[in-house]
């Protein structure tokens, strides 16, 4: 296992490259999820503006 992680002495380069790519992809997926949640919440609000929970009330007053 430690031999695998050592990557023949190139651990810093290999894992920085793979780690950076993984972080970038995770950020894209998370921001896309957030964007979809926001647009669907706004759509729900425009269809039925009755606030259901305190969190949604907050979202409504921001608009």
């Amino acid at each position, binding site marked *: 296992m430690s031999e695998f992680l050592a990557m*023949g002495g190139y651990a810093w380069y290999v894992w920085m*490259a793979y780690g950076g790519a993984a972080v970038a992809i995770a950020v894209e*997926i998370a921001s896309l999820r957030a964007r979809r949640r926001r647009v669907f919440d706004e759509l729900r609000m425009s269809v039925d503006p009755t606030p259901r929970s305190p969190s949604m009330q907050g979202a409504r007053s921001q608009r």
Partner: protein
Amino acid sequence: MLINWFRFSSPVSFYPVAGSWSYAFGAIAALLAGAGLVVALYIAPTDATQGDAYRIIFIHVPAAWMAMLIYLVMAGWSAAALGFNTRLSAMMAQALAPTGALMAAIALWTGAFWGRPTWGTYWAWDARMTSTLILLFLYLGIVALRAAIEDPRRADRACAVLSLVGAVNVPIIYFSVQWWNTLHQGSSVSLTGAPKMAMAMLAGILIMTGAAWCYTIAVVLARVQAIIVERERGAGWLESLIDLRTAR
């Protein structure tokens, strides 16, 4: 079987298709990426001259290919948006830009960490690296230009023009290693001629490329759905099409 593709040129009929395809391609991307990582990090043999540092190319090459390909697809949708004035074409171009920027950024980042042990430097103003950096700036510029223009239809046209003008950069990136005598080496994978690497290495690159394709399709379709909802809200048809209890 004859498919009427023009049916999908309207956001109304494309929206549900985009949803199911996004899930399907996302699942395939996850499977391919899992298999590809096993090949890339474990099965593929250590390179004779580069040692294990070469394993970086399993993400570098697919990301660099994807960054160029996404640009061409985005420019194609932009041309369609300008020529036919179709809403969905402009939305597709809009959805592609952030993922193109991501791929260009990954290509530059992984290239730096491959270049340091192999060439002795993280960065050089080499023709291919510089033109890839310009590609990243073009993507970021297109995203920023859209954010700066209030009217979405005007933003569509401005971004389409910028995309088309910037498309000249893609062949420059692609042929840079032939046109100029530069640091970045020529391609290791080609459709013609014998493969220049071990079978497992080639297989790893191709599997990771498949994963990058499927990931891009999944993410772009999920994003174009969000864009459709953002831009078509109030048109009336969305509320009847989307199950608001489960949509997320």
